[in-house]
Each structure stands twice: as structure tokens, then as C-alpha cells.
């Protein structure tokens, strides 16, 4: 089977996020008030061949931790893309 997977890579809590902070500072000037705790991250989408959904997810999680994220500063979370 071919599964579509989404991997989200986000900075671990406690790691400074200059992109998120810059975005948050820009929002009031655009008229968006009350927005806080902005964190920037990355999203990857790909298809993967696997016997079942569990093994697709486990392969995706493993490659996300090996390559797509740097475990020193980032967390990675894989999930199935239900839209496909």
C-alpha cells in the first residue's frame, strides 16, 4: 500500500525561536492583536510504501528523526495525511 504522510518539525520547548518571535512582533502592526506564543516550524509531505498504516508511520517517524529534524533542538511528529 501507498500511504501519504505529513511530518511536522518544531523547535523543542525552551529553544529560542527567532522566526516565531519576529512574526509575533510584526502582527500588531498589521492589526492582529492578542496573538502570542508564535512558534515557526517545518512541514514535510510525502508518500511511502508500507504493508500497513502503522509501519508507514513508524518508517516516517524514523526518517523524520534521522534526517528531517535535528533532535538536539527539534521534535518531529509523523501522521497520516487523511485528505488523500
Amino acid at each position: 500500500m501507498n500511504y501519504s504522510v505529513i511530518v511536522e518539525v518544531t523547535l523543542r520547548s525552551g529553544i529560542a525561536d527567532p522566526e516565531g518571535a519576529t512574526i509575533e512582533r510584526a502582527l500588531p502592526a498589521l492589526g492582529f492583536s492578542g496573538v502570542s506564543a508564535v512558534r515557526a516550524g517545518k512541514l514535510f509531505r510525502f508518500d511511502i510504501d508500507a504493508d500497513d498504516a502503522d509501519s508507514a508511520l513508524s518508517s516516517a517517524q524514523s526518517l523524520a528523526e534521522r534526517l528531517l529534524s535535528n533532535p538536539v533542538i527539534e521534535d518531529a511528529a509523523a501522521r497520516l495525511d487523511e485528505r488523500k
Partner: protein
Amino acid sequence: MPRIAVVVFPGSNCEYDAAGALEQLGASTEFIFHSATSLGEVDGVVLPGGFAHGDYLRPGALARFSPVMDAVSTFAAAGGPVLGICNGFQVLTEAGLLPGALQKNRGLTFLCQPTTLIVSSTHSVLTRAAHVDQELVVPINHFSGAYTCDDDTYASLVAHDQIVLRYRENPNGSRDDIAGVSNEAGNVVGLMPHPERAMSTLLGSADGRVLLEGFVGLGVGAR
């Protein structure tokens, strides 16, 4: 004459500066392409600055899987001197040969300017010819140079004297002003500033010499 391998990744751009600086100090150098599986008979390895593999994904993230990195890891594990400059530092952290990570600069600005460094430890192949608290003017040239690590790693860095260089004025948001760190043994060192661009007072500073002299084995034990 020490023989130094300068590793060239697709996207490296400081390999000629690095080799030129090392040769000024009496070393012989050879370029080793990233696809090589052996370093040959060398006394040291330099990972130069640049944008290995385009810095795609994260700086150093793809370079760490280049075939040559297995040979670099083996050389490092055997106690061989390994120096990562700028992008080379990023590659060494991604490869797990040095602790921590390099994050985007505070302020999201690409920085290209002279900085004043303070030697914090001489327990490394890069700083062994310098002295503690020595001030060195060396340029930086990076976007992702903010040194980051968790509290446990930081405590371990301090306990084992692995913080080798600090900025006098923190330009990029690095934790504890860190500009360069070593592994516990001191034979693997990475720094964001470019000592190979501080080799002549005519070009602004010759303060990089004492660092690279230490790396190639000159002036060691002279203190």
C-alpha cells in the same frame, strides 16, 4: 611537514582560503571530495566554510551523510585533529562529533563583520598555542551561528572545559557567548568565526594565525 586534508562538499566555498592559510604555516594540504571513503595518510582534517549541499533542510544536515564523514568520524575517534570552520562546525554538530547545534542568528540577520574572541580554554587542538583570556580579532560570516544546547549539555561543556572561544560581544544570540567548542578529548573543534581570513594585518587581522598554528602543531608547548 604536517599533511592536512581539506574536505570539499558540493557548496563549500572557503576551501582555498583554508588551504592557503594552512600552507602559509608550513602545512601541506590536499582537497578530499565529499564522496571519498578514505582520507589517506593525513595528520589533520579541516571542514571548511560554505554551504554544503546548499544548506538545504538545515546547515550540515545533508553533509553529515556524505561518504567522507565516516572516514572523518573514524579519524576523530582515533584522536586525529579535526577542525570545522563555520559551515564545517555546523556539519560536525549535525554529525554528532560535537555537542549542541547552530541555530539561526538572533535577529535573523546574516552577519559579516570582525568580532573579538576571547580564548576560554587551551585544552583543544585549535587553542593550544594561545593563552587563556587572549583576545583575537577574527571575522564571522554566517546566518545560522547561534550556538544552542540543553542545560545538561551546557553543564558538561563547562565541566570538561570544552568551551574554547567566546565572543566578547555576543553578535548572534549564542548561549553564553560561545563561538567555538571542542569534544571532551579536545581533538575535535568547531568555531563559527573564520581564522583562515585573519592571517595578515594588511587584510585586517593576523589573529587567526595563533589558532591555525596550534592546529598544525606549531608553537605548541612554547608557552
